[in-house]
């Protein structure tokens, strides 16, 4: 495997002010501005330090189980009759999702910085579990904010976090989902900033988080790019990933950013469809989504005419966020990546199809990416290659799916 386990070339965006083109930046209360400066400096020192890379690489190999494989989805490809579909198996990473990549990276950074109290937010619970796991491993104190709506629909993950020694703090404000969990985590950080590390779970928030989370997730694309060439003998024609905040997608896309022959496609949560306005498709519904500022960064934000943040809907808790990572907004503007959506129904169908044809139960989030592959593969030649980032496994979603489809 390549030795570059996280980004080492620093010529890429963001710029010094944390901007990806016109998106990104640092819109936070003064109280945490010095902490962001400190974090940025500590991160810059860490990625210059071979020991930091070595420690992260060691944990990725011996704890997370990296590299995760790429699997050829033969029966799915045959059934669809088009492109050969390959799956990057982040579902096989320890804790069952890509979130552990970032949690371990930031966890090691927190330890380097001497911060022993860690806070995090979680939507689907995967980042919460990833963080609780990494903190158990590293011996750091862990508090996870989670909306009560999400607590209800992701009970197994709540239990996992508690078992791993984390304190799960229910959030009752606003829509009681991921957005509100981030609000509460930021309020905690403003209050306890001197001794607390905020382990943000997606490629969003104030600079340097979008950059740092991307870098810690870029291992997905670095591995996949090499694996797909070994397996399929070529780079993918199309690369698909689901986009909530967008960390698994940016982690996959980053390695392919200079491969002009590879089309990058992000899949947002279409919920009940655009017409219903019950979705989280920030790039698809420009009637209610436009550039704005939420949680410290400038990106596309679902908002009403007065700039109040709108409530979103998705069957998958991990995609249910009214904004999107700023680098995705930039990639879309550059037309380097394209963004589409899958509805709840399409994701549920993909969830079942992948289970039956490949013996892989995907997370409902990842099922959105599979749904796009199901739509697109038949339109592509049989010798073309479509790579899907299977960002997580679906055990956590069984209650939700049973509730919809029946036992």
């Amino acid at each position: 495997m390549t030795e570059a386990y996280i980004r080492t070339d620093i010529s890429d965006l963001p710029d010094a002010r944390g901007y990806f083109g016109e998106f990104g930046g640092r819109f936070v209360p003064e109280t945490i501005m010095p902490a962001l400066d400190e974090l940025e400096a500590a991160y810059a020192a860490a990625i210059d330090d071979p020991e930091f890379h070595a420690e992260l690489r060691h944990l990725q190999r011996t704890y997370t189980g990296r590299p995760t494989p790429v699997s050829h989805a033969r029966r799915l490809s045959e059934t669809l009759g088009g492109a050969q579909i390959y799956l990057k198996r982040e579902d096989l990473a320890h804790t069952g999702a890509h979130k552990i990549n970032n949690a371990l990276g930031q966890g090691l950074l927190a330890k380097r910085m001497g911060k022993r109290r860690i806070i995090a937010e979680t939507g689907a619970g995967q980042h919460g579990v990833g963080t609780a796991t990494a903190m158990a491993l590293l011996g750091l104190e862990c508090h996870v904010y989670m909306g009560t709506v999400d607590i209800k629909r992701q009970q197994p993950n709540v239990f996992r976090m508690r078992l791993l020694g984390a304190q799960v703090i229910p959030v009752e404000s606003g829509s009681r989902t991921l957005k509100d969990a981030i609000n509460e985590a930021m309020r905690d950080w403003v209050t306890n900033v001197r001794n607390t590390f905020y382990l943000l779970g997606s490629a969003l928030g104030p600079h340097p988080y979008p950059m740092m989370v991307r870098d810690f997730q870029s291992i997905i694309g670095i591995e996949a790019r090499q694996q797909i060439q070994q397996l399929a003998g070529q780079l993918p024609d199309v690369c698909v990933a689901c986009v909530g905040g967008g960390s698994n997608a940016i982690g996959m896309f980053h390695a392919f950013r200079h491969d002009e022959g590879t089309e990058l496609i992000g899949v947002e949560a279409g919920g009940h469809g655009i017409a219903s306005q019950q979705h989280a498709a920030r790039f698809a519904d420009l009637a209610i989504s436009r550039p704005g500022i939420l949680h410290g960064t400038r990106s596309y934000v679902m908002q009403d005419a007065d700039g109040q943040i709108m409530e979103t809907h998705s069957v998958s808790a991990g995609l249910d966020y009214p904004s999107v990572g700023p680098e995705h907004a930039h990639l879309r503007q550059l037309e380097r990546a394209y963004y589409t959506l899958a509805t709840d129904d399409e994701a549920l169908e993909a969830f079942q199809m992948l289970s039956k044809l490949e013996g892989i139960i995907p997370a409902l989030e990842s099922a959105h990416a599979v749904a796009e592959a199901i739509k697109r593969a038949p339109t592509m030649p049989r010798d073309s290659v479509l790579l899907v980032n299977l960002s997580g496994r679906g055990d956590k979603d069984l209650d939700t799916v049973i509730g919809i489809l029946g036992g």
Partner: protein
Amino acid sequence: MTRKLQGRAALDAMFARAQAENRAAFLPYFPVGYPTHDESLTAIAAMAAAGADGFEIGIPFSDPIADGPTIQAATQVALETGSTVRTCLDAVRALRGRGINQPMLLMGYANPLVAYGTDRFVRDAYAAGADGLIVPDLPPEEAHYFAESCAREGLALVFMLAPTSNDTRIDLVAEKSSGFIYVVSLTGITGARADLPADLHDFIARLRARTDMPLVLGFGISSPEHAAQVSQLTDGFIVGSALVRAGGEGVEAVQELAASMVAAIQA
């Protein structure tokens, strides 16, 4: 009666008057639309009558990350009763129409202002009679969104300092802020507290050593006792959550608390 001064000049005059009386200026915060639009205007007018020196007129936002439970709940009610950026601008105009001449600063998170249009917002705010703007999630690094239009219209653009701010940031904020510097008294979110922070004197001394800008203290100042203490320490102070909580009981409670604050700093 029309006002002679607006914007930064009005704030300068406010500080000069308070200083002449050997006290700090008292600036209540109150969100427009809590518990209703009309009642919020009545509350602000009552505080003006009670002798407040200026106002922070709160523009509600759905996701106020720097605010504690009291202001979160009040601004949520305000949004439910139809408060928008436009109704907040209308509120300033209406208060000026009632003859309230104290300086008024609009205070709101960035997104609703960006959605309204930053240039348009600054222009309309000045036209409505506002004197300044405070955006808690807009550090000076991102000031370019508002700085040019505020300078053009003469609206003060106030930045914040916190106990965590180092010397580099103190110098930056002192350079960029206009009208005054909003000094966050503690590392935390808004909300009433029993005591002022123990290290407050040292913190203010640290700032005074680096800037001559007027310092206005906010966060946690809840009682006439607090007011009396900070009146000898800073150029102004802001009371938010305690007055908003009183607002939930009725305009009399707001007026009573404001009057007791005024009495405490004049004693």
